[in-house]
């Protein structure tokens, strides 16, 4: 048994993300108590559903654009939870109060104007409905229903034995309702229903509203009430309790004695926790009224545990709880992550990463935090070294890499990669698509010879081949030497970029066996034909192999560098407002068959 919410409760949640998290918490409770989960929400994205974990399955929670739309599809909805911002909370609550089948509306929204809260209480009373809140953490009936996040985490639900019933609880404070449930589970038999009425000055429902309902709920033997200074709700509860012989026992605590020693008018606790203008509503007045009415009133919050224990032992002695069924709680299924963390399962990884680890606060590049690399002045060449070859390159190596990137960054609009990117940009495709199209051009004839050149130069050096043997080997088994030869550049018209790069590398004094080998090859090949020079791909390849970069990484230097240029060309076309282009017909040499008659189709 319970009050105001039970196994028959069907909920519509009004509000966005906060409402969805409440739905998740409510599904956890339903799992614990082994009852079906039945919640409907209407945040803004009407027509969609929200997937809420329920045990080890997902439940789709439908979303509507209004309470009326939700209740039309699900007439069994009898409760609404308000998770709407203060300026729209009034209208949202009215919508719920106007739905014929909704009997209970509970509002978690804080900071609702007092006038609105007062009006909502009156509107609810007119319709003979219950309006709980504002600022209410929610309502929970052990083993039956949870409205909102009251009760907190799943571990706490289990510790507080919320899957089964015991005492009744009413509090003003959300945090303290949890605390009382915990005390009730330690010193007694758990709770029947716990209600946070909210700490506002004028809560929609007061202690008396719920005391009356608890009085009628035979399962509830004792009600624990947590009050605080301000207002007269505790006094009204005392009057109600003292009026006549009540079935329930009442244990109450009140806070706010500190007010007697604090600066007058100082604000603390909840909005409603304020002294009256003429001293009414003090903690002492309230405690005395409750005591006079026959309630058990411990002097401090710490006195609650023993008081609850004594009351529980009395009930036990009376035999009222004999024959009560004990129900075991259910654990929440753990996520794969949790079971792995606890060492309960072994999951074989699908992929492997030996260069970058993003499981911490920030990515680690081969173990070094990215921010620390930045702070200590490292540059892009160092990042390339870490991610491509798992090492921090030396300052000289970094400078060489930087020069390679600069000299390969672009080569004008006419080369394959840039041209395709430009055509793409003019056709209106996105940067990623256009640059990817340019990238597709990189291959044996355009920019893609670096890896090939590196591969064969290292083959020659590794096998200590003479240049002649090497060239013979290449001619016989491979074909033209990658990295040798240029379409326009020649011995007499040298590539300045190549000359400058070689000059710099030589000036550093690092050992350059591959570069030397390549230059020796060039000497032989140019003797045969002027244009068979060591081109930019070959130069880069020889130098990068000298820097000990793995052969498979070498094309990456061209791809990376040229991406800068391609992105530039795409942006350039966009900025200049280029239009769709097509080739002029005179640029195409039409060599296909002259026009002729189509023969009939053979049957």
């Amino acid at each position, binding site marked *: 048994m319970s009050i105001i919410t039970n196994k028959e409760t069907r909920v519509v949640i009004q509000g966005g993300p906060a409402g969805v998290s409440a739905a998740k918490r409510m599904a956890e409770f339903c799992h614990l108590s082994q009852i079906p989960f039945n919640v409907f929400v209407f945040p803004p994205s009407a027509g969609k559903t929200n997937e809420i974990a329920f045990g080890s399955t997902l439940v789709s929670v439908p979303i509507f654009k209004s309470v009326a739309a939700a209740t039309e599809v699900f007439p069994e909805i009898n409760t609404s939870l308000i998770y709407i911002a203060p300026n729209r909370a009034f209208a949202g609550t009215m919508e719920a109060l106007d739905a014929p089948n909704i009997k209970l509306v509970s509002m978690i929204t804080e900071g609702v104007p007092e006038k609105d809260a*007062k009006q909502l209480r009156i509107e609810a009373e007119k319709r003979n409905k219950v309006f709980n809140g504002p600022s209410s953490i929610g309502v929970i009936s052990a083993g039956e229903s949870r409205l909102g996040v009251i009760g907190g985490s799943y571990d706490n639900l289990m510790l507080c034995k919320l899957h089964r019933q015991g005492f009744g609880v009413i509090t003003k404070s959300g945090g303290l309702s949890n605390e009382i449930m915990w005390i009730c589970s330690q010193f007694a038999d758990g709770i029947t229903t716990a209600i946070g009425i909210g700490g506002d000055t004028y809560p929609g429902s007061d202690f008396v509203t719920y005391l009356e309902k608890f009085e009628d709920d035979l399962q509830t033997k004792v009600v624990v009430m947590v009050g605080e200074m301000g207002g007269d709700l505790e006094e009204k509860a005392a009057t109600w309790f003292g009026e006549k012989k009540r079935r329930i026992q009442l244990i109450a605590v009140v806070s706010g004695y500190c007010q007697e020693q604090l600066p007058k008018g100082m604000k603390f606790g909840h909005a409603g926790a304020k002294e009256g203008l003429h001293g009414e509503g003090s903690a002492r007045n309230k405690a005395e009224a409750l005591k006079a009415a026959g309630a058990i009133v411990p002097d401090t919050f710490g006195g609650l545990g023993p008081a609850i224990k004594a009351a529980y032992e009395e009930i036990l002695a009376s035999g009222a709880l004999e024959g009560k069924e004990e129900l075991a709680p259910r654990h929440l299924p753990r996520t794969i992550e949790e079971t792995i963390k606890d060492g309960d399962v072994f999951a074989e990884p699908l992929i492997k990463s030996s260069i970058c680890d993003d499981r911490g606060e920030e990515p680690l590049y081969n173990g070094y935090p990215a921010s620390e690399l930045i702070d200590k002045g490292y540059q892009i060449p160092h990042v390339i070294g870490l991610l491509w070859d798992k090492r921090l390159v030396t300052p000289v190596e970094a400078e060489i890499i930087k020069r390679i990137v600069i000299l390969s960054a672009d080569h004008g609009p006419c080369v394959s990669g840039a041209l395709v990117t430009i055509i793409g940009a003019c056709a209106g495709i996105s940067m990623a698509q256009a640059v990817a199209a340019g990238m597709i051009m990189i291959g044996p004839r355009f920019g893609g010879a670096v890896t090939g050149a590196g591969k064969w130069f290292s083959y020659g050096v590794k096998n200590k081949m003479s240049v002649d043997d090497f060239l013979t080997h290449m001619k016989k088994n491979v074909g033209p030497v990658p990295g040798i030869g240029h379409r326009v550049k020649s011995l007499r018209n040298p590539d300045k970029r190549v000359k400058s790069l070689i000059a710099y590398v030589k000036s550093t004094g690092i050992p350059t066996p591959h570069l030397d080998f390549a230059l020796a090859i060039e000497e032989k090949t140019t003797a045969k034909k002027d244009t068979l020079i060591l081109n930019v791909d070959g130069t880069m390849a020889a130098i990068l192999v000298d820097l000990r970069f793995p052969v498979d990484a070498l094309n990456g230097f061209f791809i990376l560098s040229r991406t800068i240029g391609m992105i530039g060309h795409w942006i350039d076309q966009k900025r200049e407002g280029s239009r769709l282009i097509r080739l002029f017909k005179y640029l195409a040499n039409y060599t296909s068959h002259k026009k002729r008659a189509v023969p009939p189709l053979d049957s």
Partner: protein
Amino acid sequence: MAKVLEGPGMRLLSKWGMAVPNYVVITEAAQIDNLSEANPWLRECKLVVKAHEALGGRMKLGLVKVGLDLDGARAAAKEMIGKAVAEVTISQVIISEMVEHDEEYYLAVTSTRDGAEILLTSMGGIEVEANWEKVKKLAVPLGADPDMQALTDLAKDAGFDEALLPRVASFANKLFKCYDQEDGSYLEINPLVRRSSNGELTALDAVTMVDGDARFRHPDWNFNFASEFGRPYSDNEKVIMDIDSKVKGSVKFIEIPGGDTALLPAGGGASVYYSDAVLAMGGTLANYAEYSGDPPDWAVEALTEKVCALKGIKRIIVGGAIANFTNVKKTFSGIIKGFRKAKADGKLEDVSIWVRRGGPFEKEGLAAMKVLEGEGFDIHVYDRYTPLTDIVDYAIVGGGK
């Protein structure tokens, strides 16, 4: 409930048709010269100069000067502005005309659960407290307007002369309108006077409390709310209020100089039980503080720094009930950062720290707090199995682990 200072409070009354004395608010004494050209009353009337701050007992502090002429008012303003009183610097003064009057009345509207109550007596001024039983009350249900006949009867009941009844009833009706339309919590005019010159009812002094939560529907509320406890907010309090206004959840902080026990508890409800426990155990409070609604860790860190900076504290109570949705690990990480920073700044010498908490990620949060034990902090960490306020007993009387 939020307090509005005299100047903007008078403007609200005037907006709803109630006569108030002429007044100006100035931040520099010299402003009075230009103002006196535009406002003849400044030259022609006797003047009152008051510090325009949320300070209690201004009369005793010499921050109210009456019966001045323009030169006297300028001198008084010059003396007050910039003056440091009780750790507060006066930044503005209100200069108003002295209204010659014969009798003083009392009129107020206060919010009740069912609507409002109008309070009225013809014995106003300083006598009202002593004659509280003579104050007559009229309840007005929510959504209703007070009945003019009922207001007239109220005025008659409250001891007003027959001739005055219609004017008093009409004035009360205006105050009710102001209360109702401006989301008032409590409006009090004391004294309400009759001008000797023309007999016009005038609100000489007023307490104006409105519902701060209703600010969103009052675009013309261009004033800041003032503190309600007899002194303006301190700079430290303003820093936390500013953070509070920007974050999800809340952080609250009020300083109480001279206390030996600092509070850093979670939750509006629990924080008051902790305050009670400190006083019950014979401690004195150095502050009131509270964080709730899962505020970001940096906001809790800022609050922690302010708490650690409180002068003369012997202990800090980091209490809290079992949270519903506040992440204990995350909020504690803010507190821990704050503690470490304070220690590095040489604070927290001879200060013991007492922790009790439960809620989501409580194990992780409490374990992180326990790490401070090894860093030279005098810290004592308890979990949900220690009752809520027992740490206060341990902290002040002893007996903890």
